[in-house]
């Protein structure tokens, strides 16, 4: 991601480059696993938030391209609201948590599709350019972050309508439960999580994600080996 894409016009003025995603925070997504959650290898439904890091090589901005590896037919679109932390969040109470949020952005957390959530390979989620981040919008300009419509388009066609609701941990609760054991720093992004039924897209296709109040994020997929857009693979400073 180009250094200029990391900055925005209000405190904390700059993304830190640290992005945490959360798995299975959408209640229907967890419910879809049914009784498998109680069987091996999981043996019980998740108790703590299921977190993962999108490392800095994944960060990309609007208009970027992400390379699809040759052995994979499509990437899964991971449309999520991303909360930008504005104040250091350590052991934050749920009732105070939204005050730690400076703003939000549309994020596409692209992944190689995988069926097992036990110990998936890091290469499913850590590919270059696979965390596309849109413009950061100040929190005061948003209605309830848990009640925003989401629309996902592939090659211009609307392929999914969903929303930021039905989260097992709404944003405030998520921040509280995460910050109980790991401090979130200003500029960090914490994703609210992707809804069930996420679509996939193939090399050569364009993706657009709209979240009410956060605008529209456009980006594209290319085949690995094709010259990628410079901004997709440049390491951020």
């Amino acid at each position, binding site marked *: 991601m180009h250094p200029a894409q990391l900055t925005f016009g209000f405190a904390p003025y700059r993304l830190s480059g640290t992005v*945490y995603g959360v798995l299975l925070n959408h209640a229907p997504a967890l419910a879809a696993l049914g009784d498998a959650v109680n069987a091996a*290898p999981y043996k019980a439904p998740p108790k703590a938030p*299921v977190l993962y890091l999108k490392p800095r090589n994944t960060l990309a901005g609007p208009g970027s391209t992400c390379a699809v590896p040759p052995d994979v037919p499509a990437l899964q679109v991971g449309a999520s609201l991303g909360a930008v932390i504005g104040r250091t969040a350590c052991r934050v109470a749920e009732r105070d948590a939204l005050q730690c949020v400076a703003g939000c952005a549309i994020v596409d957390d692209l992944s190689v599709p995988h069926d097992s959530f*036990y110990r*998936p390979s*890091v290469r499913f989620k850590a590919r270059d350019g696979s965390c596309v981040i849109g413009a950061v919008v100040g929190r005061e300009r948003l209605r309830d972050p848990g009640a925003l419509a989401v629309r996902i388009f592939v090659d211009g066609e609307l392929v999914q309508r969903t929303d930021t609701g039905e989260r097992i941990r709404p944003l405030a609760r998520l921040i509280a439960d995460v910050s109980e054991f790991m401090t979130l720093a200003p500029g960090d992004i914490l994703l609210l999580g992707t809804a069930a039924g996420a679509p996939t897209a193939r090399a050569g296709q364009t993706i657009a994600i709209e979240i009410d109040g956060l605008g529209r994020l456009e980006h594209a997929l290319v085949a690995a080996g094709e010259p990628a857009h410079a901004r997709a693979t440049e390491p951020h400073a």
Partner: protein
Amino acid sequence: MKRARVAYAGAIHEAAPHDRGLRLADGRIVAEEAVVWLAPFEVGTIIALGLNYADHAKELSFGKQEEPLVFLKGPGSVIGHRGQTRRPSDATFMHYECELAVVIGAPGRHIRKADAMAHVAGYTVANDYAIRDYLENWYRPNARVKNRDGGTVLGPWFVDAADVATPVQLNLRTLVNGRETQRGNTRDLVHDIPSLIEYLSGFMTLNPGDVILTGTPEGVVNVNAGDEVVTEIDGIGRLVNFIVDDATFGR
């Protein structure tokens, strides 16, 4: 050369070893305990290996993995030499992991094994703590086990790659309150450093400051509040950490 990054008298300094402690870049000689030790380099992505010593895999009842078992740790978990790491009161099994940390210098992707060592800037010691009580079977090892504040201890020195002739034959050990509890040698890595660099750079660009924690051998034991945990690697350094209780943090 070995260098540290320390805070002293209002500024952050680069420092070199000295008989009486450290020599700051500006010439001042200070004692080891007189400074705050930070991670000795600007940390990028932290890439940790699980089950990368054959004996440790047996200890935790896993068979040999073909693909390296890699997980990522966040920057918020980093703490330097002589820091405090919290042991929650409800934990029954919190353990250290002494690891050789390999720091990337020249960036690259699709790096072949034969070229991999040219991308290593240097080394430091890591202690990759885990609290097993919180282990869940979702995206293992889960963040509450491995991504805690103070869970990634790095230091004391950044050692230039040129000064480590044989990264593949380094003795490592852990001592808890002066008693050795873990011992191994980097020759026992399942996936060696060039293999790891080739594997990782195949799907993710490795950038300067990215660091690979190459795994730990058998001998991880529980540590308690009040313990001094020393993880050391011959020629790289002796990294000290203090385990403290919840009350230290007003919890």
